[in-house]
């Protein structure tokens, strides 16, 4: 009996200790439909029973831009690299929002889905991936807003030609990918840690807010004091946002090095994030 069963091919072996790099990508691929259905769920449940529906996606960036323009532009008089303030902030907010949404939503994935995860197996990575894709929809809508604003400024009675789309636009897919994966990677690490140390949840909420001020969202890198510049550049999001502004508005300190650095950091964080997440998912149900 023992011998005959050993010679059989088992489809699945469930055991406690698996290789660190057994990331079950095959499983992930099998469940790809689930990812899309979860995205659809997020989208539909977001606007069901609201009057404005998807318009809500516009409202937050518009108001943030107005407030930023007033506070940082008019009151504080912070430089906008010679760009119209509204465009400058909107570009920063759009890309920052995508990153921070990915990060904050991913960072609570174990807590939010403890019930489902406790009852059914599917590759857990599907959940954070679906969050990243869901947020992409939102990001797309906000990007549309940015483009509309650019058209408005371009064709307004007093044409404003201080901005123009550059060939950096070809890097756009890479930039989106970096924002998504950096947010995802950091979120995965945090959510894995929060299964045991709940304190981190509180840290994320205001940590992300503070991090925004360490990123070039409300000021251009060129306006940063020389003494602090290198620290701001250490933030991988800085390179991404600068490149994003350069691509769409033609202003921003964009270099191959800065984007290369951001890519490297993203890859490393994502790599660790996925591994830690996969380690945690196996037993988190017992501790959460």
């Amino acid at each position: 009996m023992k011998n005959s069963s050993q010679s059989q091919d088992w489809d699945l072996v469930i055991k406690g200790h698996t290789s660190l790099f057994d990331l079950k990508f095959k499983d992930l691929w099998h469940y790809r439909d689930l990812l899309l259905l979860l995205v659809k769920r997020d989208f539909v449940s977001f606007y069901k029973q609201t009057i404005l529906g998807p318009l809500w996606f516009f409202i937050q960036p518009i108001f943030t831009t107005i407030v930023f323009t007033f506070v940082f532009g008019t009151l504080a008089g912070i430089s906008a690299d010679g760009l119209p303030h509204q465009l400058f902030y909107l570009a920063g907010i759009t890309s920052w929002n995508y990153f921070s949404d990915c990060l904050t939503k991913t960072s609570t994935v174990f807590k939010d889905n403890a019930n489902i995860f406790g009852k059914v197996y599917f590759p857990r990575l599907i959940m954070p991936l679906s969050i990243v894709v869901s947020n992409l929809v939102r990001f797309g809508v906000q990007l549309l807003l940015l483009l509309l604003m650019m058209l408005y400024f371009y064709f307004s009675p007093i044409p404003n030609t201080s901005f123009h789309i550059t060939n950096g636009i070809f890097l756009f897919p890479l930039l989106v990918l970096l924002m998504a994966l950096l947010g995802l990677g950091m979120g995965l690490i945090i959510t894995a840690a929060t299964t045991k140390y709940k304190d981190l949840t509180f840290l994320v909420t205001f940590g992300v807010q503070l991090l925004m001020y360490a990123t070039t969202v409300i000021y251009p890198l060129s306006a940063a004091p020389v003494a602090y510049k290198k620290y701001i550049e250490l933030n991988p999001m800085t390179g991404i946002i600068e490149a994003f502004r350069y691509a769409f508005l033609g202003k921003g300190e964009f270099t191959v090095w800065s984007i290369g650095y951001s890519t490297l950091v993203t890859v490393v964080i994502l790599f660790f994030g996925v591994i830690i997440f996969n380690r945690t998912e196996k037993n988190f149900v017992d501790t959460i």
Partner: protein
Amino acid sequence: MSHPIIQVEDLSKAYQIGQIGTGTISRDIERFVITKILGKEDPFLKIGETNDRSLKGESDIVWSLKDINFEIQQGEAVGIIGKNGAGKSTLLKLLSRVTSPTTGQIKVKGRIASLLEVGTGFHPELSGRENIYLNGAILGMRKKEITRKLDEIIDFSGVERYIDTPVKRYSSGMYVRLAFAVAAHLESEILIVDEVLAVGDAEFQKKCLGKMGDISKGQGRTVLFVSHNMAAVKSLCSRGIVLENGLIKKIDTVENAVGYYLSGDSEAQNQITFSNAYDKKEFTLHQISINPVGSTSDTVLDEYQEIEINTAITLKEVDNSLHFTYVLNNEFGEALFTFSHTGSGLKLHPGLNKVKCVLPKGFLNIGSYFLSFYVIENAKKTIFVEKDIMTFNIQEGERAIGSWMGKEPGFIKPIFDWSIK
């Protein structure tokens, strides 16, 4: 020729009780490095304690399952039974990969679909149809697979009219029906089911069990079923695994496994032998036993049997004015009925009397019963009373698949003479 489809080898699962966290971050880090990075076993686990809630363990670690070994063959329906906390749910969780074993392994052939709960991941804002897709995908179905079975699922659920209504407007019954309908149409080689029968009305339970019977017997798929409803386990499964304190106590045919599990109920005793406590002036009471007719008192009593109550008593005086009366009480202490042998015209005689009373087939309903014993003199004077002298349980018998598995109302269910013209 046997084809194991699931093979469980030395499977153990430890849980930490009390405060989670080993105390210090440095110890956490040490533990993390050893277990997660190096992939070794946790040095902070103590080996060798069993999971018994009533005993105080030495460490904060309990073994919810300890070195479990078994094999399940292709097409078998296996019932997993045990008391609360015996490790049933842990075993199901491990099999369905919700959590991973501490040591040991499970080898599986084919896809596993586990139903630890119906309707996992249902979103209240989405319509029934959208939820079928979402839930199906969570359970591992591909979208085109669901589309192919959509009509069948909707039909089975019986909520066709509301299929495009958000499920938050559903009654809880409709919700469960829809959820089970999705699960019932999974195309997996192995189906794991945990107490789904606890929800829903009689008609729905019937449908569930019928479908599960169909899955295991009709389609030859393997079913693992956990339930406290012995009638359901008996009628659905062919083999049973009895778990107790994280250990396997018995793997046998379902009748034997259920019998073993039920006879382990320490409260009920089907036979009491009395010492000199009941050595009275008029009589000596030796023994009272309850058993199915033609069987011994260690047999489990079920709802379909003819049951006999035997009383052994020695009368000391030549006095035939004595007779016995029994009162049967239910678990709430209410008297159900009184019965005695006076009406039969039979008389007790001096010396040893073996008094037998047979309850007709299928007379008592499922439940716990308490028997009180009275000795009456001259049909009016009670000379001896022992209330609740013994306790016994009537268990669920095997029922046809698709029939109602719960308990009917009432304490007795006599079989009357019927005629239809």
